[in-house]
C-alpha cells in the first residue's frame, strides 16, 4: 500500500503566533480510515487545512497524493483539490444553489457534461436518501440533511482521499450515526482513504481504523 499522506517533522503556525503543530510525523496509507483527535484548539483543523493547502507549512514536510505541499503552486493545488473530497462541520454548501447542483459541484469543476453530472448527483442523493430533496436549497434542509448533501458532494468525483473536519459536530445522534455509516461504507466499498478530525471517536464505530492524537502540538499514534 502506498502512502496517501506523509508528514515528517511537520510544523504549522499562524502568522505572529506560536506554532499550533510543533511536530507531526505520520503517514496514512491507501484505503485507511484514520481518526485524529485532540482537545479544542489543539490544532486538529489546522492540520487538516494543511492537507488541502489552506494552511502554509512553517517547517518540515508534508506530501498529499505524492505532491509536496510546501512547494505546490496555485494551479497544481487546484488540480490536487479536484481529487480530494472535503467535509466541513458547517457543511459549506452554496446556499443559492439547489441540493442537486451542490452535489454536482466537483463534477462541474472536473468538466463533465451536465447530464453526466446530474446522473451522478442523483445516484449519490439516492445513496444518502435525499433524492426527494434534490430541488430544495440548503437553507430549507435540516443540519443532518445538509451534512448528508455535503457527504454526497465529497463522494461525487470518486476522490482518492476524503478529509472530514468534525463532520458530526453540529448533528444530533441519529444524523451522526447516518454520517458515520456513510463514511464507513465509502471506505469499505470504494476503498477511499478517509481522515476524520473529531473530538471523540464514536462508540458505535465498527470498522477498522487508526487513531492519531494531538497533544501539546505533537501528533502521537495511539493505535
Amino acid at each position, binding site marked *: 500500500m502506498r502512502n496517501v499522506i506523509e508528514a515528517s517533522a511537520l510544523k504549522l503556525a499562524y502568522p505572529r503566533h506560536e506554532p499550533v503543530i510543533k511536530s507531526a510525523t505520520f503517514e496514512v496509507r491507501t484505503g485507511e480510515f484514520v481518526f485524529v483527535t485532540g482537545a479544542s484548539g489543539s490544532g486538529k483543523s489546522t492540520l487538516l487545512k494543511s492537507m488541502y493547502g489552506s494552511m502554509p507549512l512553517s517547517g518540515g514536510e508534508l506530501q498529499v497524493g505524492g505532491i509536496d505541499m510546501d512547494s505546490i503552486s496555485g494551479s497544481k493545488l487546484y488540480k490536487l483539490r479536484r481529487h480530494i473530497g472535503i467535509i466541513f462541520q458547517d457543511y459549506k454548501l452554496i446556499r443559492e444553489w439547489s441540493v442537486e447542483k451542490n452535489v454536482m459541484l466537483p463534477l462541474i*469543476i472536473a468538466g463533465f457534461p451536465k447530464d453526466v453530472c446530474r446522473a451522478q448527483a442523483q445516484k449519490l442523493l439516492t445513496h444518502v436518501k435525499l433524492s426527494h430533496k434534490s430541488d430544495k436549497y440548503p437553507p430549507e434542509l435540516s443540519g443532518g440533511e445538509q451534512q448528508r448533501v455535503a457527504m454526497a458532494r465529497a463522494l461525487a468525483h470518486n476522490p482518492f482521499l476524503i478529509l472530514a473536519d468534525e463532520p458530526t459536530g453540529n448533528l444530533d445522534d441519529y444524523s451522526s450515526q447516518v454520517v458515520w455509516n456513510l463514511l464507513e461504507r465509502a471506505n469499505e466499498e470504494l476503498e477511499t482513504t478517509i481522515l476524520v478530525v473529531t473530538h471523540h471517536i464514536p462508540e458505535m464505530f465498527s470498522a477498522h481504523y487508526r487513531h492519531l492524537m494531538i497533544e501539546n502540538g505533537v501528533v502521537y499514534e495511539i493505535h
Partner: protein
Amino acid sequence: MRSIRHHLSLILPLFAILFCIEYLMVFDRITESHEKSLKESYSIILVADRSAKLSDISHRDTLIERVEKIDAENVLRRIKADMNPESAEKIRSIMPLFFSIKLKRYADGERIERLRSELISIPGVRDVHIFEKVHDRLYAMLLFMKISFTVFSVLIGAISLLLLVKQMTIWQFEHRERMQIMSLFGAPVWLRSGVLFRLAVVDALLALLFVVSALLYLVNDPGVVKLLDAVGATPERLFRFDDITVLAGVSFAIAVFSAGWVVLRFKEEQ
C-alpha cells in the same frame, strides 16, 4: 425581488454614468456646431503691400485656419473700361494685395483685437478690416451652460462611481462564500468568478439598453425636437448611432472592471 435589487444596484449607477457621458457628447456637438456657424460670421480682410508673404500671415497666429488671396482682377477689369490702358496699368502696379482670413474657431472681441494687433505688426501689412456680427453674449451663455453641465455630469458620475464602489464591496461579501467553497474544491478562477462576470455583463447590457431607449424616446419626442430646433440643433446632435459604441465600451469596461476587482481581491480564508 432580491434578484431585481441586485441588478438595479449596478444598473442604476451605470445608467447615470452613461447618461452623463451621452449628455457631455451632445453638448460638445451642439457648442461645436454653434462655434462653427459663429466663426463664419467673421469676415477679416487684410490689406498688404506686394512685399507681404502669404506664409507670414498664415503662421502668425494659432487662431488662423487659412488665408486666401482675393483676386483683384475683377475690380480692375471693371474700372479699366473708364480709363486709358496706361492709367490702368499704373493702378495695377500700385494696387495692394487683399487677403481673406478664415478662423479655426469662434473667438471673443478681446481675442480678435489681439489677432488684429498681430496681423498689423507683420511687415508690409497696411490695414486689417474686421466685419463682424457680435455673438459674444449667446456664445458666452452656451459656454456657461456647457461648463455647468460638465460640472453637473462629473458630480453625478462621481456619486455613481461611489455607488459602484459600495456595490463592489457588497459583491465581495455576497460572492465570497461561493468562491471560497468552489476554490476548496479546486475550481479555476474563471469558473468561480463566472457568475459575477455574467451578472456584470448582463447589467452592463441592460444599462446600455435603458440609456439607448431613453435617448431614442427623447429624440422622437416632439417637445424635445422643438427645443432642439430653437437652439438650432437637429435630433442627430442629440443621438447618433455611433454613440452606442462609446456607451457600450464604457458600460462593459466599468462592469468588467468592477467584477474583476472583486475577483482579484478574493483571498482564500485560512
